[in-house]
């Protein structure tokens, strides 16, 4: 099948795609884009609630002092640019303050007024005045803190042993331990979850980015009649094979480049960004190998389908509008893989990683989260290869039959007939 004619077509496809502005831009911009998205998210989170002016009132001086200490400590550790003022006052004095400063509160010059009455040590009821009662960001920042202050004040007033106090105040720490074939590995799942999501997004983007332009290119060759020139020198099968293999090589190269930063991070060669420095990422050689081979099978499968669709229709609009059912074969597994990230051992996850088409996106997400049994890997690979075989045979038939056909838009019934008879 791969003779000098096919090789010439593969060579042209690879050169045209790899040196195209679109390819270079996409290859370089995707990792940068993802870093920017994560970075911006981090940036926005760090700016949330900044610049707020908060007035703290307490009936008891000791409570006020505790609040000052805790809030100052919070500001030092995690600055949110809060302007804080503290004042000891009774409920009546507070009401006078609010009356006098009503305008400032309404205009947002004072974002909130917190009042901790003496009775808070009995019923844990504190008051918060604001022009925006739903200012959850500000409330969330101080809720735990005020709770701790009230608890501490209560404990202080009861003369309880320090050791007991320390134990009570200590949070439970759940250490996540992952059972693997080789033993028990200590680790935090969030790093692996990030990789699973990253793999899923990479596969989704790449499959669409490689297969959709291939469909457009095949359709353009048909519409512009370039294909007729080609077919005087090559067979339709050679032409289709050349175009698919060429596009797959270009896609594989792109995927390989995208994986390099992930591998460098996983190997510890490059420290993660500040926001993700706690993530523990473990990526073995087998995982990477399976991911790349799985991608190769996937991209060949979808390139075959998309190319056949490009050959079937007389214009790009008809081809695009008929693509939706095939797009679902990428979109649905993409969303399933996201749900698998939360529970990779679910029945849905196992089934998804063994179903034709679904397996291409679901298995890579699962394999980085749990130790997938070897038989499941073998089964998934076999299913993907069998799927690829049937797709290539059927789509090859459609391509050969339809690439020179012009006229009305074919119906699904006709497409089925072509597959049977061609």
């Amino acid at each position, binding site marked *: 099948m791969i003779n000098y*004619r096919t090789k010439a077509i593969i060579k042209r496809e690879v050169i045209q795609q790899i040196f195209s502005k679109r390819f270079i831009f996409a290859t370089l911009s995707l990792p940068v884009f993802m870093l920017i998205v994560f970075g911006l998210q981090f940036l926005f989170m760090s700016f949330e609630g900044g610049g707020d002016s908060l007035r703290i009132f307490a009936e008891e001086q000791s409570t006020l002092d505790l609040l000052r200490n805790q809030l100052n400590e919070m500001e030092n550790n995690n600055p949110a640019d809060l302007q804080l003022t503290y004042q000891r006052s009774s409920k009546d004095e507070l009401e006078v303050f609010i009356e006098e400063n009503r305008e400032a509160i309404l205009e947002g010059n004072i974002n909130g007024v917190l009042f901790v009455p003496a009775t808070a040590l009995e019923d844990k009821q504190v008051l918060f005045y604001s022009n925006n009662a739903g200012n959850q960001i500000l409330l969330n920042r101080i809720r735990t803190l005020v709770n701790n202050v009230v608890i501490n004040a209560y404990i202080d007033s009861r003369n309880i042993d320090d050791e007991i106090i320390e134990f009570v105040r200590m949070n439970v720490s759940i250490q996540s331990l992952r059972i693997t074939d080789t033993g028990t590995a200590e680790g935090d799942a969030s790093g692996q979850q990030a990789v699973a999501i990253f793999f899923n997004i990479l596969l989704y983007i790449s499959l669409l980015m490689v297969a959709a332009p291939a469909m457009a290119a095949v359709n353009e060759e048909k519409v512009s009649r370039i294909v007729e*020139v080609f077919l005087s020198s090559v067979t339709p099968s050679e032409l289709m094979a050349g175009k698919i293999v060429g596009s797959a090589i270009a896609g594989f190269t792109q995927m390989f480049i995208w994986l390099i930063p992930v591998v460098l991070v996983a190997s510890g060669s490059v420290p993660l960004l500040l926001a993700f420095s706690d993530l523990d990422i473990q990526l073995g050689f087998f995982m990477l190998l399976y991911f790349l081979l799985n991608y190769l099978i996937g991209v060949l499968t979808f390139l075959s389908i998309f190319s056949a669709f490009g050959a079937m229709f007389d214009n790009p609009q008809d081809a695009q509008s008929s693509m939706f059912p095939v797009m679902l074969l990428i979109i649905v597994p993409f969303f399933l893989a996201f749900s698998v990230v939360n529970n990779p051992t679910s029945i849905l996850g196992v089934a998804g990683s063994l179903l034709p088409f679904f397996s291409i996106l679901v298995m890579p997400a699962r394999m980085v989260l749990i130790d997938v049994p070897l038989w499941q890997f073998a089964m998934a690979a076999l299913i993907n290869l069998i799927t690829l075989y049937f797709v290539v045979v059927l789509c090859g038939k459609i391509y050969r039959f339809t690439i020179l056909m012009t006229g009305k838009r074919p119906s699904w019934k006709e497409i089925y007939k072509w597959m049977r008879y061609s």
Partner: protein
Amino acid sequence: MSELEVRKLNKTFGQLHAVKDVSFKIPEGAIFGLIGRNGAGKTTTIRMMMDIIGPDSGEILVDGKAVENDFRRRISYLPEERGLYKKMKVMEVLNFFMEIKGIKPSAVKNKALDYLDKFQLLDRQDAKIEDLSKGNQQKVQFISAILSDPEFIILDEPFSGLDPVNTDILKEIIIDLKQQGKMIIFSTHLMDFADRMCDQIALIHKGELILNGPLQDIKKQFSGRNISLVYEGDISFLSSSPMVETVNDYGNATGITLYKAEDIQKVLRLLIERQIVIKKFDANEISLQEIFLKVAGGDD
């Protein structure tokens, strides 16, 4: 050099019998015209000859043997609808087409430059196809079809879209290729070109071959009752003459077909009596256009 034979080709598309038992032979070194109306089955026949689509029955033979896979190396095709990759440069296109023919581009570089020079495209060798005019794109495509030095060249409407200067250049190159012993197969609607350039023709009508053979023999067959006349005056009276079957009048030149060959002298006498100025009167001349109209015109 070789002889190409099409034997009993049949092709149906659903209910449409597009090509019915078409057979013809093309001798080596001939310029062969495959003519017919739109939808007659010419392109389908060519596609089967090129092995782009398979026939339902029949075969293509070269020197009496069925064509094999390497036939694609020996044949080139310039389709009616032109198509080149718009983003590729002229030399890249030519190199690519050589590679799919299994020829190293470096081996034909000088020849490519020579053809580009002949077509006045030498200074555009690094230009992108999309930056060329339609006529220039067509010339590049023609060069890509002949650069691999094929034995058989199929040209589908090669002159359409070319200006008179480029038409002349192309004609010269085609004649040069014929002199090199290449077999050239034209598919065309332009009877004038076919008339002047083809040695042999095959006329396909509604999928069937209705004329086939050396052009001169076919002309002889049709010219017995035919007069080619160049004149001045009014010859409208001929249309109502009981001797005349048809008159294809173009103002000062006409083709006249009679019911009987014996009436040729009577018609000449009639023209003189009516004081028509006769500049040319040829009783053995019939154009391919007239033959075409006789056998394929009229019945839609």
